[in-house]
């Protein structure tokens, strides 16, 4: 892999030989919409019928009235008028049918895709954390957007027309044999040539198409990364180098597109050439048949027009093959995701959802995200309902992992995590998470108002909501927002500062009123005034709940009933702030580093700042 390919890599190619299976699954998606698909197919017959009827009507007009000198002139003129009326009706009908077909195809295709997209999105959301750990976000996003779009392209613009084309081809072949089987047989000699040519082309086209797709994705990834970091590139004076690298990616893409043009440039004219060979054959051999009195001139003319009709869909068929190939590749990737089950076993008969009391116990828990890399070793601790436990330890000591296990994002390798004495593996993950309030450093915002964002689908009466807002110290924030509680936030709305988002996170927990709180205190970027607000919100949120806190501030550590000090996945010390200081170990050592002047004199000051 090139250095600095800026974030792009493509997964393996579509395995051949699995296409039939893919098709079957794809068509299954269309299953519920079969009446609409049927209507679309019928409409496409009607469209073709109307198109074919027009030349026939013209011929009738010519044969019966225009050149029929046996008829008196007024009758011929009247007949012509009648034919013109019929003609107009067919043309108008064709237009309407065509319109309906476009609408029906779009509605069917879009409905099917909406269903697939929804299924995929919901499915992905149900997958376990280990899955997301290993998946680049961009890849998943592409699956639910662009890959679905590729499928849609195929459903609406290809499937129905391909079906129709195939039918037309068969019809023409039958017609040719009926008209003159000897000449038809001769022309049939072209068929293997044509098939071979088309097959060869499809393979080349598929490969080059894939290369182009990859190239475009690479360009996208490059743009994404370099434009996001454009300031850094400018400050470091890397413009020239970045430009050169981009030119290389761009150039590679150009080379692939030019290759595609060459492939099509050979294929398309070659099909036309085979068509001309057919015409020449009809003239030579057919002419001989006529001279021998075995065929009429009308049949020869018919052969020529059918030949043209025969080659037209073949040209398009191969053009459509790239759409199909792209859709199949997308389908393969979509199915791969849909087939992936959650690695998190859910009990067949989960326990009924009892309301937690909030007693938490880790019993000899050992866990690692990857085999052979243990993150937690023999962790044992317990929290009684209402107790606050502070987790402290270095980055990578396993604090977040404790939270991940408590939320049942993962199951322990050995040992058990219990809430109210129940092993979490006996509970559905959702049932657990509904009863745990989580405040992390990052806060998500859903599209909607601040109220929507606090409630997240819950219903609260005004008095309760007011208490939630006060507890989370959001009163001041709301007063500043235009529209207050009903201000739209997030995408297309107002942005919240980091500190305000933290407060929102506390409000969410208060609104859900769970027995258990998990808190990863924010470390950075919050000014001292907001810090005070957050401190109050923490106090309000912890009150009366079992709390597991990754603590970063002294006030929180002091509030904790017990501090658990983690080091390399083991519990090295456990006790209250005072006990641990008295112990004179790991915790006390670090504490002394920060407070070599002693803490006695400043405690008063802190209390002043934290009324």
């Amino acid at each position, binding site marked *: 892999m090139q250095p600095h390919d800026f974030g792009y890599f493509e997964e393996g190619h579509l395995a051949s030989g699995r296409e039939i299976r893919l098709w079957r699954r794809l068509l299954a998606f269309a299953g519920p919409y079969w009446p609409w698909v049927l209507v679309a197919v019928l409409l496409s017959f009607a469209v073709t019928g109307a198109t074919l009827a027009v030349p026939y009507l013209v011929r009738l007009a010519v044969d019966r009235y225009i050149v029929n000198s046996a008829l008196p002139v007024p009758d011929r003129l009247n007949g012509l008028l009648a034919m013109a009326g019929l003609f107009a009706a067919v043309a108008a009908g064709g237009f309407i049918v065509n319109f309906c077909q476009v609408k029906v195809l779009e509605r069917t295709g879009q409905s099917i895709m909406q269903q697939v997209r929804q299924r995929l999105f919901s499915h992905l959301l149900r997958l376990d954390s280990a899955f997301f750990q290993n998946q680049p976000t961009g890849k998943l996003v592409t699956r639910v957007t662009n890959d679905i779009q590729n499928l849609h392209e195929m459903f609406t613009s290809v499937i129905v027309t391909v079906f129709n084309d195939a039918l037309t081809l068969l019809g023409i072949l039958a017609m040719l044999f009926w008209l003159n089987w000897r000449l038809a047989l001769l022309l049939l000699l072209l068929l293997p040539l044509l098939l071979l040519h088309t097959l060869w082309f499809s393979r080349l086209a598929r490969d080059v198409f894939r290369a182009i797709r990859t190239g475009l994705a690479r360009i996208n990834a490059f743009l994404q990364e370099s434009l996001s970091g454009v300031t850094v590139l400018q400050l470091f004076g890397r413009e020239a180098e970045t430009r050169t690298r981009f030119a290389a990616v761009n150039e590679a893409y150009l080379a692939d597109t030019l290759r595609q043009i060459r492939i099509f440039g050979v294929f398309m004219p070659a099909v036309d050439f085979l068509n001309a060979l057919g015409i020449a054959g009809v003239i*030579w051999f057919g002419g001989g048949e006529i001279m021998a009195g075995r065929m009429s001139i009308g049949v020869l003319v018919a052969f020529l027009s059918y030949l043209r009709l025969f080659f037209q869909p073949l040209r398009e068929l191969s053009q459509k093959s790239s759409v199909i190939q792209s859709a199949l590749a997308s389908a393969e990737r979509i199915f791969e995701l849909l087939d992936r089950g959650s690695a998190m076993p859910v009990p067949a008969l989960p326990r009924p959802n009892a309301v937690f009391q909030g007693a938490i116990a880790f019993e000899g828990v050992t866990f690692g995200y990857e085999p052979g890399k243990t993150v937690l070793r023999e962790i044992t601790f317990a929290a009684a309902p209402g107790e606050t436990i502070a987790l402290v330890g270095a980055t990578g000591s396993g604090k977040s992992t404790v939270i991940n296990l408590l939320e049942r994002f993962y199951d322990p390798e050995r040992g058990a995590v219990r809430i109210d004495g129940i092993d979490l593996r006996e509970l559905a993950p959702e049932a657990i998470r509904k009863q745990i309030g989580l405040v992390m450093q990052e806060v998500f915002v859903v599209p909607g108002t601040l109220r929507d964002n606090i409630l997240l689908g819950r219903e609260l009466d005004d008095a309760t909501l007011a208490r939630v807002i006060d507890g989370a110290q959001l009163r001041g924030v709301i007063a500043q927002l235009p529209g207050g509680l009903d201000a739209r936030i997030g995408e297309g709305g107002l942005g919240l500062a980091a500190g305000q988002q933290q407060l929102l996170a506390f409000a969410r927990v208060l609104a859900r009123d769970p027995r258990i709180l998990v808190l990863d205190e924010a470390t950075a970027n919050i000014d001292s005034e907001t810090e005070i607000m957050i401190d109050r919100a923490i106090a309000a949120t912890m009150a009366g709940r079992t709390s597991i806190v990754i603590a970063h501030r002294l006030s929180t550590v002091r509030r904790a009933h017990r501090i658990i000090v983690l080091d390399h996945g083991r519990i090295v010390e456990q006790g209250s702030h005072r006990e641990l200081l008295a112990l004179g170990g790991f915790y006390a050592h670090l504490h002394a580093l920060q407070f070599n002047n002693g803490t006695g004199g400043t405690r008063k000051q802190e209390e002043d700042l934290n009324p």
Partner: protein
Amino acid sequence: MSGERHAAAGVTTPVAATFGGKAGQAWRLMRPLLLRYRWRLTVGLAALIGVDFLQLLVPRLVKRAVDALAAGTASGPLLPRLAGAIVGLALLIALCRFVWRSLILGFSRLVERDIREWLFSHLLTLDRVFFGRHTVGATMALATNDLTAVQLAAGMGVVAAVDAVVMTIAAFGFMLYIHPLLALLTLAPMPLLALITKVLSAKVHQRFHKVQEQFSRMTEFARSTFSFIQLYKAFTQEAAQAARFGRMGEEYVRDNLRLATVQGVLFPASGLVGHISLLIVVFYGGRLTIAGAITTGDFVAFIAYLLMLTWPMMALGWVFNLFQRGVIALDRIGAVLAARPALPAPAADGSIVLAGTIGLRGLSFTYPGQRQPALREVGVEFGQGITGIVGRTGAGKSTLCQLIARLYPVADGTLFVDGRDVNTLAVAAVRERIAYVPQEVTVFSDTIARNIALGDPAASQSAIERVARTAAIHEEILAMPQGYQTRVGEKGVKLSGGQRQRLALARALLLDRPVLLIDDGLAAVDLETEQRIVLALRDHLAGRTCLIVSHRLAPLQYVDRILVFEGGRLVAAGKHAELLTQNRFYATIYAFQRMEEAGEGPGHAAA
């Protein structure tokens, strides 16, 4: 400035003007490209037109054969000769087709490549003022979706247009020759088609735009959902989030159906107009034939020519669409190419060497689109040594760093480097003297070593390790799976916020520039490490100018001077000890933080 860069890239700069219609804008962009590829285009178009005329010959050969067969004179070598001629002609046509496909479609891809390169080169010259108004996603769409529209118009659009024009002229010529009035009547519905196409194309475009917007909204929604998946799961928002996505999807379906309604009228409309013409030929031409004004053969030929017109007519509506989309896309691209950096760009003066003293005189600044100034009348000098900058959120600390790093324009006579007004210096010349550590760190998908060596890819391993040590990240890098060769970014190891910031610091230190700005760039690093870093910087930066913005005061007790900002103003300056006794704000915050941060020590001790 951008002109030089484009010239350097071997591409002439299109001067995109802000006036004139979209077509004018498109023309200005395309003109240099048309000139550049004029030979390719000339030969390609000649081949294309050649194919059109050669194609007209085949039916004539067939007609001769049919006539001879009808007359019973098709004996001897006539049929094989005619068949041979058809094959020969077909070979020639195939050759011409290959030529025009290679040359004209190739042209469209070359155009795509060139414009993408211009665009990217130009974007690299634009500053924060531009990127504040345009999201990365929208800018990327220009280089992909919009360019695809341009490429389609320049390739198949041109082919279809030429085909349409040539075939129409040829066929119409034959028709005029047969019967002028009939020919004119037959073509009478054509303006109708043009009108329908024009009106509906505008609608198509507008609705297509809505579809695209909704699509990108869904993309962003999916992205943020997957990025914060654990949070959504923790709040059991899976079903609710899927329902939200579903509603967006339904909206998307509706938008698409609205688009299909217009398209469903537009595309069959050209076929309908063709049928109306045919109806006129059959009815009026039929009457002419019955009246003996034209012969039966003429009548049949007339229909044949009209059929030849069907494809060009259908193509016309399509071409119109392609061109319109292409023009709109070019207009959008042109608008970005016309955007100029807000920073002045005086000619680079290679002779000056800046040492790195920075002077501010009455410097005020307001962000574009905001009313409240972020900095008010700041006057201060920065010389050798480390200056700490503290203040509340929004006090103007970060703004100060960004202005010094020349990310935003400043008024004349307010910002000086070595006594020279920065507006008289090339931006690059100033930036070359400054290393900057931003709060939001960009990590590129590459190895750690190459990320640190961003500013100097040729840096030696020992140099990289030296700065990594100063930035207190060396040990952690060694602990990673492949050490300095560990890949980070989208597909690699995810770095913590503190690691990213220290990586950015190492990256800046490697440049070894006279000025170092740390714009709250250690906020995610724990206190103890930050203190260690500040101490290390004192040795590392001897003789250089360094500004450290920090929310935390404790590490700043080791710096030479501290500036306190409040509401965009510089309110106090002095050493840590002086400020503690003289500045109430500073003293209060310091006391508070000392208490607060105690809990953090163990939390990050080994970080």
